[in-house]
């Protein structure tokens, strides 16, 4: 063993952009090394899609579109109805992984190492936020491809598709920041995915799988006032193409994403510097 004599000391000057790139690269490298989480991002929505279309769809389809007869026609109508929901659920699945990944880092010593280095909290935490967003977007393409293989034909034009991508990026960033905070707030890795489970349930308590008009009053009120209903309606409108979603609904979706994202970001930053008993 020899002493090292030639290395310049670490610079004190913060370089947040370089740090974000480094942390995102780490997150993606982890995804390559442990592809289980990424595969689950695709498999989860795929199983729900197959189950809901091929088992329930024949009956449910008649309830979501007027004049549709049960059976094959119903299945096609239900595929149309829930494909946007499953794309949204794919993004939610990515966020759930963010919580687990963040809790794993915090339970091991690596988060403590980052905290003793001169790196901005935002840079450390944006690693999983952006890394899992990239994975969720890749999973989205695969889930959409599966829906198309099952007969789904979106009418979205080029502009609609661009707007859709924007919506999913915004939703992904918002939910991922929220889930970073949930992961930091979790007492253990095992419980880190509990809080994000609520996010997975919300599309079911909205317009994800059935029109809100068919729900009892209390449930309907909740469905109309929770974030996922406008998000799903906007995705549905953009995918259908033509007139697109109502501007008011799209504005609600964007507003919800901004509120959730900023709240998650602020919560995550404050939790990052919170003392953790040594």
């Amino acid at each position: 063993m020899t002493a090292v004599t030639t290395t310049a000391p670490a610079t004190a000057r913060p370089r947040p952009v370089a740090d974000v790139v480094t942390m995102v690269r780490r997150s993606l490298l982890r995804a390559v090394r442990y592809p289980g989480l990424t595969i689950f991002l695709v498999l989860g929505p795929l199983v729900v899609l197959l189950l809901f279309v091929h088992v329930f769809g024949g009956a449910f389809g008649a309830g979501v579109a007027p004049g549709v007869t049960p059976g094959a026609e119903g299945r096609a109508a239900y595929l149309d109805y829930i494909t946007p929901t499953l794309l949204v659920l794919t993004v939610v699945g990515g966020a759930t992984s963010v919580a687990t990944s963040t809790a794993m880092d915090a339970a091991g010593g690596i988060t403590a190492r980052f905290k003793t280095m001169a790196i901005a909290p935002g840079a450390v935490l944006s690693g999983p936020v952006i890394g899992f967003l990239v994975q969720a977007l890749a999973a989205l393409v695969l889930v959409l491809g599966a829906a198309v293989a099952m007969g789904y034909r979106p009418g979205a034009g080029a502009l609609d598709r661009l707007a859709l991508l924007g919506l999913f990026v915004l939703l992904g960033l918002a939910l991922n920041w929220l889930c970073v905070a949930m992961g930091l707030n979790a007492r253990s890795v095992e419980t880190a995915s509990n809080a994000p489970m609520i996010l997975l349930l919300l599309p079911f308590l909205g317009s994800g799988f059935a029109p809100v008009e068919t729900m009892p009053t209390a449930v309907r009120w909740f469905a109309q006032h929770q974030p996922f209903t406008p998000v799903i309606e906007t995705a549905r409108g953009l995918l259908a193409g033509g007139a697109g979603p109502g501007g008011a609904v799209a504005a609600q979706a964007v507003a919800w994403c901004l509120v959730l994202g900023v709240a998650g970001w602020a919560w995550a930053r404050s939790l990052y510097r919170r003392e953790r008993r040594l």
Partner: protein
Amino acid sequence: MTSPAPGPAIEVAGLRKSYPSTSGTRPVLDGVDLTVPAGTVTALLGPNGAGKTTTVGVLSTLLRADAGTVRVAGHDVAREPDAVRASIGVTGQITAVDELLTGAENLRLVADLAHLGRAAGRRRTTELLERFGLTEAAGKPVSTYSGGTKRKLDLAMTLVGAPAVVFLDEPTTGLDPRSRRTLWDEVRALVADGTTILLTTQYLEEADHLADSVAVLHGGRVVAGGTPAELKAAYDAGSLDDVFLALTEPTGGTTPALDEEDVR
């Protein structure tokens, strides 16, 4: 590499720290005073629960002091935490490595975060892998490493940015005798280069071998300090073991609960 800053590398005065407990707050550090001259090794000794890990936590900016002043590498930890962070390296009790990445990738990750630049980062990675005998393991995922090998990688990652002050919290706990010797050699090499080291240990032999000075922490205070030889002479003891036993006898009410360092 790091030229020792003029004056002490670590200055602690009147450091107090309490943790919330069921009956209000429980003091862990109750007025710790400590000075570590630049380019020396100081060993923090003390029984379980004496506050060694809490002290390192405050000095490395992970915990906030309730009272007292703490300066590390010339910067106040409360007022300029990022300046302190840019000057220190920390190896805590929990191994701080990314299990999914390889050893080389872990080192490059830290090199990137220390802004060494691509070429210098790679050089530094190769150099540290060789220095810690990790070259063969470099391309394998860390999850396949033994505990001792992980610990070596952990320390190598701490040294990537050539920190002026290095904190080692029980660095040799769980290491076999050979790995322990390797780590001691490494500590000596670092100090020869001008690095300042504060290490905590339960092994008195380790303090005797390595440390220029020893501070014995007990009941939330530094109850004795000096070179190992001075301490042995002052307490008329043949070994640091005897000094330790004489100084840290349980005194009833003032001894903090023993579980402090077992709690994460």
